[in-house]
């Protein structure tokens, strides 16, 4: 087994109405890492994700999980979905029960675990996502951010190998975004769960993600570490994406204002290091 948890080979997906959503995607997603899939609206991110857990079956090409092609039989899908946890963008379309506790227990119960173990997992998932105090609240009284956490807990309780989140930060307030991303990072670090997210929130990507795929119109146009991907400024801008704000600032400083700075800085701490370095180099002249 190599280091890829997911692999796709020339994956095509065409919707029943004829829309071609994926046009030959061949990628490998590393185990134990946090991977981001970037792309403008309609680039095919959600479609790709739904191919990962067998909700959609490729029109042609292959999806491999742990090196094995997906098994689309009833049993195979059930097994796959207990290992691939999917968190959807709108928690209201994921939470079916008015009881927080019952909703979180749904996936675990479907795995036919002994009741003791199921209860333990539900408790653990609630503790990890910080929603134990919401256990007895009705779903409809929760805020959007709280619902999002409940949705994550419901998937986390199944103890999957990989967590796939479709736009996890959309609609959250700034602190909510940070808390959620920290939570995901913590889940990845302590439980060793692979995290895959799709997002438009470019600024969080260099902070929390190890690897990036960039999609445009159903094709994979770029991949690499945040540094590698954000170095391809022209391509990113041509497909309705942009640099992280900090990266953009560094670009302007070096290109328009002639600072000789390390322009690969994309986060505040990287920029700080680059500026400190600049200061050290020029301290003699000042």
């Amino acid at each position: 087994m190599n280091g890829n948890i997911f692999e796709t080979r020339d994956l095509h997906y065409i919707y029943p109405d004829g829309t071609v959503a994926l046009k030959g995607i061949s990628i490998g997603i590393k185990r134990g890492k946090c991977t981001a899939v970037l792309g403008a609206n309609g680039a095919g991110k959600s479609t790709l994700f739904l191919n990962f857990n067998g909700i959609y079956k490729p029109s042609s090409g292959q999806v491999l999980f742990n090196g094995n092609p997906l098994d689309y039989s009833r049993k195979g899908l059930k097994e796959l979905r207990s290992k691939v946890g999917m968190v959807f963008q709108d928690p209201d379309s994921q939470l079916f029960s008015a009881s927080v506790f019952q909703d979180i227990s749904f996936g675990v119960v479907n795995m036919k675990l002994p009741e003791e173990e199921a209860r333990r997992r539900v408790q653990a998932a609630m503790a990890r996502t910080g929603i134990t105090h919401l256990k007895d609240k009705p779903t409809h009284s929760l805020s959007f951010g709280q619902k999002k956490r409940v949705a994550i807990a419901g998937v986390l309780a199944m103890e999957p190998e990989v967590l796939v989140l479709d736009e996890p930060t959309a609609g959250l307030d700034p602190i909510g975004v940070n808390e959620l991303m920290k939570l995901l990072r913590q889940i990845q670090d302590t439980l060793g769960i692979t995290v895959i997210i799709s997002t438009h929130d470019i600024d969080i990507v260099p902070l929390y993600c190890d690897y990036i795929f960039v999609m445009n119109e159903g094709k994979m146009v770029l991949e690499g570490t945040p540094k590698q991907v954000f170095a391809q400024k022209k391509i990113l801008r041509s497909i309705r994406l942009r640099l992280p704000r900090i990266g953009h600032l560094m670009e302007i400083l070096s290109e328009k204002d002639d600072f000789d700075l390390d322009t690969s800085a994309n986060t505040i701490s990287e920029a700080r290091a680059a500026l400190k370095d600049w200061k050290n180099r020029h301290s003699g002249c000042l």
Partner: protein
Amino acid sequence: MISIDKYAYSSKLRYKDPMQKLVFTAMTVAVCIWAKNNIISVVVIFMMGGMTVLRGGIPLRFLLKLLLVPMSFLLVSIFTIAVNISDNKELLLLAVPVAGKWIGFSAAGLKDSIRLFLKALGAVSCLYFLSLNTPMVDLLSALRRLRIPKILVELTGLVYRFVFVLLDTVNRIYIAQSSRLGYSSLSSSYRSLGAMGSMLFVKAYKQSDALYTALEARGYDGELNVLAENYESHWSWYVSAVAVNALLVLLAVVMKSATGGPLL
């Protein structure tokens, strides 16, 4: 309806086993209807009202307001029972002549209608006890334990959950429409309302599709199985529920034999 839901979640009796509350309510309703006795009805009204307000911590004002809700139906129906038409003025307590006949209250009709009124109010206060102290989710888990067909329980649960999503959507559409003057005149109101209706239909369809996908992702296999929540349960509750109702039955029987009516 929404405030009943809110009170149920904050009731002090919330964590008591819903089965106990359900059994107690069902027994008391049955006794109240069987007894056909004004005193028993009044006792039931005060007992259930007292439990709701004192043990459950529901504000008395709110309960009284709720009790007013069925009042209009109740008054209309007892009025039709109490009012009689007769040729003989002697039979009626209070009567007005209409087209050669007399319309008015007879003693028997009045008695009947008061009994019906109290009986209905007794039963209603039982139901209010249940619904003000038991959130829907707990009630559903009690129904599941009673082996009510799963499909019914699941459907009720989904309807309950998505009524709130629907209300939220209605609210948002309404605000969006009225901020573009959608309800500024009668004709535009009709148009906006129609548009909202069709929009809700499409949204509901999409939502159900998304829900199904999300359920599948968590291994849905045709049944919405979940873990039961732990409730505070004790056999003494059932004993006291039976004891209270036995007492009511005894009281009813004693009063019936005292007035010489048939025992059962």
